[in-house]
């Protein structure tokens, strides 16, 4: 006896229905014109395609016990030992950046700082899609932090420690490749 229509279609339809829920409502960051990567001066030769990056700007404080629901994807990390001194987490801003290979984009960091995220191209290894990026945090013309890192496609890197309003700022950077 064949399966009923419900049995045949329940699984894929349920998956589609549930996946259509919960898309984050975020404001699109001010994305200024593409500019050359900050430290490299010009694009890397293998930099092709585009990186789509979400930069969550989080304020962690020791006052209060609220946890911003929009930070659920990062709850395990933020509630872990590294942030045990903090009990209150608020999402101040979520920047959505589309960065062409070899270019960078700026985003505002509270406290009159600037963030610069550059996409230096794909760095595939071990059969996995990986992205090479550079993050800078600037205070005016001064660079407070500069790091180059490679993450899996869709992976997340976090940065924290910048003091702000009786707490610290945490950046959660999640990037995936697009258009390659």
């Amino acid at each position, binding site marked *: 006896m064949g399966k009923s229509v419900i049995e045949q279609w329940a699984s894929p339809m349920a998956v589609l229905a549930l996946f259509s829920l919960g898309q984050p409502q975020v404001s699109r960051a001010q994305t200024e014109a593409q500019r050359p990567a900050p430290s490299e001066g010009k694009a890397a030769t293998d930099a092709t395609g585009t990186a789509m990056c979400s930069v969550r700007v989080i304020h962690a404080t020791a006052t209060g016990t609220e946890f911003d629901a929009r930070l659920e994807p990062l709850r395990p990390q933020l509630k872990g030992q590294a942030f045990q001194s903090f009990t209150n987490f608020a999402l101040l801003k979520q920047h959505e950046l589309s960065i062409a290979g070899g270019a960078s984009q700026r985003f505002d960091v509270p406290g009159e700082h600037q963030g610069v995220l550059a996409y230096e191209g794909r760095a595939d290894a071990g059969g996995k899609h990986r992205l090479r990026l550079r993050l800078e945090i600037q205070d005016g013309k*001064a660079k407070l932090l500069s790091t180059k*890192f490679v993450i899996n496609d869709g992976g997340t890197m976090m940065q924290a420690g910048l003091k702000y309003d009786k707490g610290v700022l945490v950046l959660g950077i999640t990037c995936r490749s697009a258009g390659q």
Partner: protein
Amino acid sequence: MAVADDKLQSLFDNELPSDEAEVLRRDLSDEDLLKLAALAELSETVRGTVSAEAATHELDLWSSLADKLPQQPSAQVIPLRRKIVRRTTAIVSALALAASLLFALRPGSPGDSNCEIEELEVVGTGATVMKVADDRGNDTTLIWFDHQEEDEWESL
């Protein structure tokens, strides 16, 4: 006037519209009535002969057809309650699978980042690179740098 034989045959077979048949019946002559009687007698004779012939040769179509049909196992009869339980189980399982996939692949959810820090420069006293685990055992790299007071900053 005698009615044409084909009309008579149609009248006998009840193939004429009712109003036309009614008009025709009123105009039947004696000859026509005799012809109708003859048709009725002929029809009865033929019917009786065919019935008698069929009775002597019993026709069994099913036995010959059944031998030619493909053999199929008899259908399994499932009690209605068990069928409902199975269907419910299938739906619940599908929803559970969808929920687990939603949890694992929720938008913005960090997966296995396998982050590798290739360069790191900070101002101040230094920075710490650490791995923080999520609830699925994946590590997320965290760079924590000690933020200096403003008068201690210097450009890299």
